């Protein structure tokens, strides 16, 4: 495999998945390890000065230390002029996190009631190394990486966000799945005391919020568990302290404030699929050709926008990560498996 030592800004999303990985699913798992090694040699420039106007959080010492050692700009957009970062105040002020209310500004106003320290994650199901881990024990064996991804919401808006996190594949490999493991199931915290949205008696979501991935989707090098963004730890409203980020799928797949990760044999039923199976499927891959029954998915509003330039741009297949992930769905009818 070609290892090129590039300036941090030269590394693009396509570089994270070398041809050898996405051309062959059989060699897939072996390839992932190589990607990590390749990337570890590149970009070591600390990017904290890029976020001087971002308010600093209140991260525990171990997390600050891990963030300091982040491999900055590990994945950046192929076209940084088009995919410019959303301002931190927008990424942290305009959220869907129904545990804190259904309005876009509810999470930023109300998520202060969430206590993320201490936090533990249960890893269970078809694994040999399961158990309950403190967040530190869970995340610190992995190198933190900065991944600048497009986030496409199913509601037809999008933002570009610099995440800090660890490859989900690392975590799964450490859990040592058994041969029965076919899917990964994720669960968000349930605590009506801390999450006012869970106290609403009119909420249609059956808590806990559940999401799932096929094992190969979960092992894909683009899939990460994020612990931070914009050079700091995650704000509560963005899913602190641990959330999934799957950039080629609609935002609702990227489950927030995770407390449980289970390797399972059966395909999990995710919350939105349970709520409206004709509108939301298990896969939820970004796809401009398959409309939501109530609105078109052919274009999206890239945020922030302004009144007279809604910034409507064409939505790209797999949110622009087609080269990296299309192989995962070879032969599948994506209008059926939406």
């Amino acid at each position, binding site marked *: 495999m070609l290892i090129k030592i590039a300036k941090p800004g030269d590394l693009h999303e396509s570089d994270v998945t070398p041809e050898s990985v996405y051309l062959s699913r059989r060699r897939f798992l072996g390839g992932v390890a190589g990607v990590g090694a390749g990337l570890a040699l590149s970009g070591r420039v600390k990017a904290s000065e890029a976020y001087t106007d971002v308010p600093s959080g209140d991260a525990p010492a171990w997390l600050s230390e891990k963030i300091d050692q982040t491999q900055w700009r590990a994945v950046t957009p192929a076209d940084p002029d088009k995919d410019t970062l959303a301002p931190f105040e927008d990424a942290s002020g*305009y959220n869907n996190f129904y545990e804190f209310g259904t309005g876009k500004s509810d999470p930023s106003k109300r998520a202060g009631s969430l206590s993320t320290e201490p936090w533990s994650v249960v890893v269970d199901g078809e694994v040999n190394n399961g158990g309950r881990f403190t967040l530190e024990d869970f995340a610190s064996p992995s190198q933190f990486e900065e991944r600048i991804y497009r986030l496409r919401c199913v509601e037809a808006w999008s*933002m570009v966000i610099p995440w800090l996190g660890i490859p989900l594949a690392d975590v799964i490999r450490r859990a040592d799945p058994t041969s029965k493991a076919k899917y990964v199931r994720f669960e968000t915290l349930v605590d009506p005391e801390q999450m006012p949205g869970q106290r609403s008696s009119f909420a*249609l979501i059956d808590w806990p919020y559940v999401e799932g991935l096929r094992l190969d989707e979960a092992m894909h090098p683009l899939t990460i568990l994020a612990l931070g963004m914009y050079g700091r730890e995650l704000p509560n409203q963005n899913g602190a302290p641990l959330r999934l980020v799957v950039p080629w799928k609609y935002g609702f797949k990227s489950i927030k404030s995770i407390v449980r990760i289970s390797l399972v044999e059966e395909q999990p039923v995710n919350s939105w699929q349970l709520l409206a199976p004709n509108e939301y499927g298990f896969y939820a891959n970004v796809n401009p050709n398959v409309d939501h029954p*109530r609105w078109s998915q052919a274009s999206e509003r890239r*945020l922030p926008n302004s009144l007279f330039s809604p910034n*409507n741009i064409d939505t790209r297949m797999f949110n622009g990560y087609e080269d990296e992930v299309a192989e995962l769905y070879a032969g599948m009818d994506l209008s059926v498996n939406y």
Partner: protein
Amino acid sequence: MAKQEAKWRLWRGTVFLAALAPLIYWGFQVYQNAAGPEPGRYLLLNIGIGGLWLMLLTLSLTPLSKLTRWKGFALIRRQLGLWTLAYATLHLCCYALFILGLNWALLGAEIVKRPYIIVGMLALLGLAALGATSNRAAMRKLGKRWKTLHKLAYPILALILLHFFWVVRADMGEWAIYAAIGALLLAMRLPPVARRLPRFRQRLAAK
């Protein structure tokens, strides 16, 4: 008598300013960059909910007059009805301008494909018909039929609530409150209930 006239003018002026104020406030929020990363959607949603409020307020005026006999309620009925139409029109303009960016082909496709948009458009057309016939000339011309025509307000309210219902994604709480108020206001039009309203007032007065 002139004093009385001035009092009602002041009342109507106050109502006018109160209905105008939210629009100025939201506009100012956008101008101040305090409306979030998607100011167009902010205006769209706020004006939509504002229009629903106005619709419910308009429909509460007749029951309120029956219950209180205060003349002021009837005096602002046309004005609030026209405000409802104005908000609904602005709501559609926000959608076309700020969400679709005046992409008419997209608007055409959306109108045909999305039931909630069809329902919203029908409600707006209904409101426009009521607005166009809200002047004295139309009232004279339509005579008895005017009252029948303006009972369209009831199905229009139902359409607005349906439009809202189909937009909600996951929490029906807010919608349920508006729907309950709407159902209550419609129930007050049922003849057995409507007949009892003045009597109810007398009973309250007797106490």
